[in-house]
């Protein structure tokens, strides 16, 4: 019985993730898409719990569902985007063909994955038992501030760049330098 709970949970959350992901791309109203994407993120977070990485699961909810999606939905509201007439247009046939090709390629590569026998890299020795004893946050944060100090610092740089970028793009929008056919 115990052994069935994990697979059952996995299939349930996977199904939710896939269905809501499809909803994201087929719903005509951007707000609906956004809400569905939040659901996808939450089910992915549950998948992380199944993988025994609770820390990632928590920040998944905090960062994606809590911050990024709020921002996106806020912008949708701000721009007052209406539902589109139809998600299809005349060249959709070609697009679907391309997606088909791509999905096939990916599917074939998955087939290859399934035949090649799983992972092959070296093991790090951080087992689930060890994690249960030490705690995931401790393990991650120790690595983050020792071995991965530089990438951590670079992240701060990246966020600074993003902030400056947003400021530049947003400022001075009200001033129109000139009007005419060129400026639309």
């Amino acid at each position, binding site marked *: 019985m115990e052994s069935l709970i994990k697979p059952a949970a996995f299939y349930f959350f996977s199904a939710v993730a896939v269905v809501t992901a499809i909803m994201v791309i087929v719903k005509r109203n951007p707000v609906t898409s956004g809400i569905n994407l939040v659901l996808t993120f939450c089910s992915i977070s549950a998948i992380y719990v199944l993988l025994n990485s609770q820390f990632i699961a928590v920040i998944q909810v905090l960062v994606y569902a809590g911050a990024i999606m709020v921002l996106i939905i806020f912008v949708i509201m701000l721009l007052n985007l209406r539902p589109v007439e139809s998600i299809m247009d005349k060249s959709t046939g070609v697009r679907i063909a391309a997606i088909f090709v791509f999905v096939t390629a990916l599917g074939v590569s998955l087939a290859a994955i399934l035949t090649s026998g799983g992972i092959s890299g*070296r093991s790090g020795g951080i087992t689930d038992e060890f994690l249960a004893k030490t705690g995931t946050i401790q393990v991650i944060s120790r690595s983050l501030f020792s*071995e*991965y100090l*530089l990438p951590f610092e670079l992240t701060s*740089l990246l966020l600074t*760049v993003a902030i400056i970028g947003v400021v*530049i*793009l947003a400022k001075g929008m009200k001033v129109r330098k000139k009007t005419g056919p060129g400026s639309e």
Partner: protein
Amino acid sequence: MQQVMIPAISDSSAQQIIKILGDTNIFYTLPQIIISIGALVTMMIAAISREERGQVINYITSVFFLFAGLVSSVWLASLPKGDAFSGMVSSDLFSGILNIIYSGSALLIILVAHSYFRNRGRYIQELFPLIQFAVVGMMFMTMANNLIIVFLGLEILSVSLYVLAGIDNMDTRSNEAAVKYFLMGAFSSAFLLYGIALVYGGTGSTGLREIAAYINNKSIWQNIYIPAGIILMLIGFGFKVSMVPFHMWTPDVYQGAPLMITAFMSTAPKAAALSAFAKILISMNLEPGSSIMLTNLIGVLAVVTMTVGNLMALNQNDIKRIMAFSSIAHVGYLLIAVCIMNREALAALIFYFCVYTIMNIGFFSLLSLLARDEDRNLTLEGIQGLGKSRPLLGLFLLIFLFSLSGIPPTAGFAAKFFIFNTAIENKFYLLAILGILNSAISAYYYLRIILYAFIREPESGSIDQWSQIKLNAACFVVIFVTAAAVLEIGIVPGYIIDLGKKAIQFL
């Protein structure tokens, strides 16, 4: 099994952190630190002052910090190789030379950008911190020893470039460039990330040395993740360098972005992405023989890239678009060197980076003098008669275009010569022949620019326009220095080649 944990956990953690901070060898990242400080300082200045005096102060400050970054890169290049941040990055002559290219090109571009954006009528001071952050990102990409650093460096660079492309938010063409660049860039970085994930899954590590050790023990075919991951990474980098079929954004973004931003995008980031990819391949020991698959694939991509670039350029009318396709073609020649993937080829690659950066920046700086009306006059008809009414500018135009089309005794010829020569020496005959044929085709569209500038009569009114051009000192210095360098390197290319060869020894 419990004993194989990473050491950070078994010791007292505080002591461990202190120890690691002690061995960070932080000075190996001195150029990055200096330029980051510069970026923060210029950002502050931009926030405080909007006046004309603030612009000049900001300009001078960023020039100062980039110059300091350049000097420290030179200093680092002269040091023996060493690791920093527990092996996350390493400094050697290879990264040193490329750091010099990045900071040098940013310096030259900022020198010209000041007057260019003044003429354009919209001066955005945040330009300076963004360019400096982009340089920092590129430096980390090249120095990286870990795929995580490569990814983060690339993202810092990309985010800066997305914003730079759209920096003139009043110009719809600039907006359009930013949207296109952003959507496609984010899309392609998802592929890059997937590639990194697969390589990590296949080898169990993101460190280049560990990956190399793994691949040396087994082959890359040990697990399908590894080749698939490398291919997906190739896509991510291929997008950045505008390799066919990931090149489609290039002409639109180059045309839409403000001219000096285009100049920046077309030079250093390409060198950064390609050198990072080449470094990944070479440190994974994927030299010919170990991976016929990659050699064939990149060879085909090289040929397709240069052919498409050259053919598309033939019928263009907008000079920025011509330069976009020309840059695609040049990436094709560069990919020949990546395809050969041995040390000599990488030396030729470094040499080509230097030359390409210099001649492209020179040409764009020259164009910046002519640009009017948000660059809309930069068409073939728009430059009619330039050579006749301003012979000196015409002479510079001639030098840069001859170099771009690879006519001796300019640097462009020497650069192509070394790439094709390496190809023949390593028995890549077909690649060399197609490359040379392509460079013969490319002469046509460069020649068209010359033809319009020299042979067509100036349009009425453009004569005053040409005579009104004022040579501003910084811009003229940049044009003069780059033109002189193009000729000098063309006539005496030996020492840079030697430097490139030495740089490769360190990898």
